[in-house]
């Protein structure tokens, strides 16, 4: 778009009408491949999912399901699984907060203080992706194990009881989620912070802002797009994740992803679909609200 815009031309000359409509057509043609892709791989599955959530639940896999606009699936699913939903959002929220607290200083250090180590540190942030998600989560199992050194060290502290443990607790699930999604916070934050002009921060200092005030009034507002992108990229997948709860949790730390997965596997399709749609809708509403509050409409 910008490439065409830079072509020099007479200012203010309005094009004749037929030209405009032809150019409009080419716009749609350019969008065609992407639109088709989305139609097949996003719209069709989504519509099928919504349809499945409205099946008559008395159907069976053998005889087939009828789409009967059975909205009650939603109320039934909600009354059974509301607490799991709340737990998922709680864990995802805690994960996002932990990722901001860990990720912001890290991204700041990489952007402003790393000097010639910058590329190396960025590679280090991405390095965990070289091994599989599962293997990384399984290694947390070893680290947090009841007989592992972390729990051993903790038990040696005076105020920690003998039966203290980490694995199979909510703390372990949130730790695992934080670890797995931290790069998704660091990378967008870094991209934003890297663009911040250091002279602006210096100028704040010259105007008698303390370093903290400069951070609060200059750096953080300029890093907002990265922060918003980072929180979205962390919160959304964390809310739907089930691997961490499966491997690091206990039966009372199950997240909504675990229930959806199990219900689909045991062919309880309408309930599973209703839960998926509810999750999707809840996330969309939260994201819209959040983006509006954060005031960065240019992101969407």
């Amino acid at each position, binding site marked *: 778009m910008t490439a*065409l*815009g830079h072509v020099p031309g007479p200012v203010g*000359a309005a094009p004749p009408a037929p030209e405009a409509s032809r150019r409009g057509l080419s716009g749609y043609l350019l969008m065609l491949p992407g639109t088709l892709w989305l139609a097949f791989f996003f719209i069709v599955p989504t519509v099928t999912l919504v349809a499945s959530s409205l099946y008559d639940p008395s159907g069976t896999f053998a*005889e087939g399901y009828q789409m009967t606009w059975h909205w009650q699936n939603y109320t039934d699913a909600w009354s059974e699984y509301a607490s799991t939903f709340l737990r998922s959002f709680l864990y995802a929220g805690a994960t996002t907060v932990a990722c901001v607290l860990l990720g912001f200083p890290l991204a700041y250090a990489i952007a402003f203080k790393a000097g010639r180590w910058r590329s190396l540190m960025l590679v280090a942030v991405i390095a965990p992706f070289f091994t599989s998600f599962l293997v990384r989560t399984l290694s947390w199992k070893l680290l947090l194990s009841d007989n592992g050194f972390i729990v051993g060290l903790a038990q040696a502290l005076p105020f920690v009881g003998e039966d203290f443990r980490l694995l199979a607790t909510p703390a372990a699930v949130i730790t695992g989620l934080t670890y797995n999604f931290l790069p998704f916070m660091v990378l967008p934050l870094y991209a934003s912070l890297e663009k911040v002009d250091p002279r602006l921060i210096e100028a704040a200092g010259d105007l008698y802002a303390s370093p903290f005030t400069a951070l609060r009034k200059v750096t953080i507002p300029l890093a907002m797009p990265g922060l918003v992108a980072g929180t979205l990229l962390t919160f959304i997948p964390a809310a739907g994740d089930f691997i961490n709860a499966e491997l690091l949790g206990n039966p009372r730390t199950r997240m909504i992803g675990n229930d959806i997965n199990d219900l689909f596997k045991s062919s309880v399709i309408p309930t599973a679909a209703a839960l998926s749609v509810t999750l999707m809708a809840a996330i969309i509403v939260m994201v819209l609200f959040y983006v509006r509050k954060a005031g960065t409409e240019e992101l969407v």
Partner: protein
Amino acid sequence: MSRNARYRPPLGPGLSLPSVGRRGFMRGATAGGLGLFVPGMLSACGTSGSQQSEGSCESTDKSEDEKELFFSNWPAYIDKDGKSFPTLEFFEKQTGVDVTYDTDVNDNNEFFAKVQNQLGACESIGRDIIVLTDWMAARMVDLGWLQKLNHDNIPHVDNNLVANLKSPDWDPNRDYSVPWQSGFTGIAYNKKAIDSPVGSFSELLTRSDLKGKVSLLKEMRDTMGFMLKVSGADPTDFDNTEWEQAIEELEASVQNGQVRRFTGNDYLEDLANGDLVACEAWSGDIMALENPDIEWVVPEEGLSLWSDNMLVPNKAEHKTHAEALMNFYYRPDMAAQLAAWVWYVCPVEGAQKAMEKIDPSLVDQPLIFPTEDFLANTFSFMSLDEETARQYDTDFSQAIG
């Protein structure tokens, strides 16, 4: 480009494709989406039934022309020697059939979910033999998804299949299924981690020194069989009230923190490293572990007995080879060789005798060749129709989370 050189876009630089503004596109897409897609597509979106029958889904056997066989089984369920598979390679040498052996069955429900769309629509799943547990095999028989076996091709099976497995209620003549191995579900514990042995399921659920260090199996029938026993019902014949009571007991043990996790085979490492001290466990897994600290016990409530069955799905193209393989593994010498490696209950008569030559120490091992006394103590889970099964699955998945 010449056109652009002459005409500047009317809305100024940066918006050179004015007719497709974001708003316009969104409006168009939303109207199109809502107006066309949603109601129309939603209403057309019911599923047709996936019930098949011999008439509705015919399979052709290409065994004559294609000397190959695709065999899907559970992990660690066949004899292995380093990288080679002794019995399987012997079968290949004898018959000239090239076997592709895959261990892509990890969980009955998961495997069902993987193949349901193809088999429901009478399409090939690219496998000639799949191995599934009794209740799932029964479900596939009911759905008409399996090919009928030709007993003329499997004389060893007819002669050597142990009597107690000859006619399960879901496949009375073994028309569709042949047991691969059987097994017991019982209790395993780590001797080093606790002071006194765990002898029963109710101890597992109530002893305070085990709290938070116990796991149960995610297979609904394994775990609920024992829960029904604990609450005084009979898993082979129970009603809804008894079921609900058993579910409540399970829920209580989950809520008070006694149960740490629900697992598949992954209880093994947790038990070995001490994160679990006792768990519900499958016999062969524990025996094959050969860890002196880990003990497998027959619970006071009894043992749950199950079999995994070789099945030939619809549209599999090498049924004759599949039957040849079934027949081959019912040779007592081959069955004994397999049993000596996998440590599960051997369903082949005569294998016990053949075992003398392979590993005499295993001949009197009741977990491979159970005695009458041992079998008297076993129970299995009653078969459920699809609707009840779904209800029970839902109850179970809610109780464990």
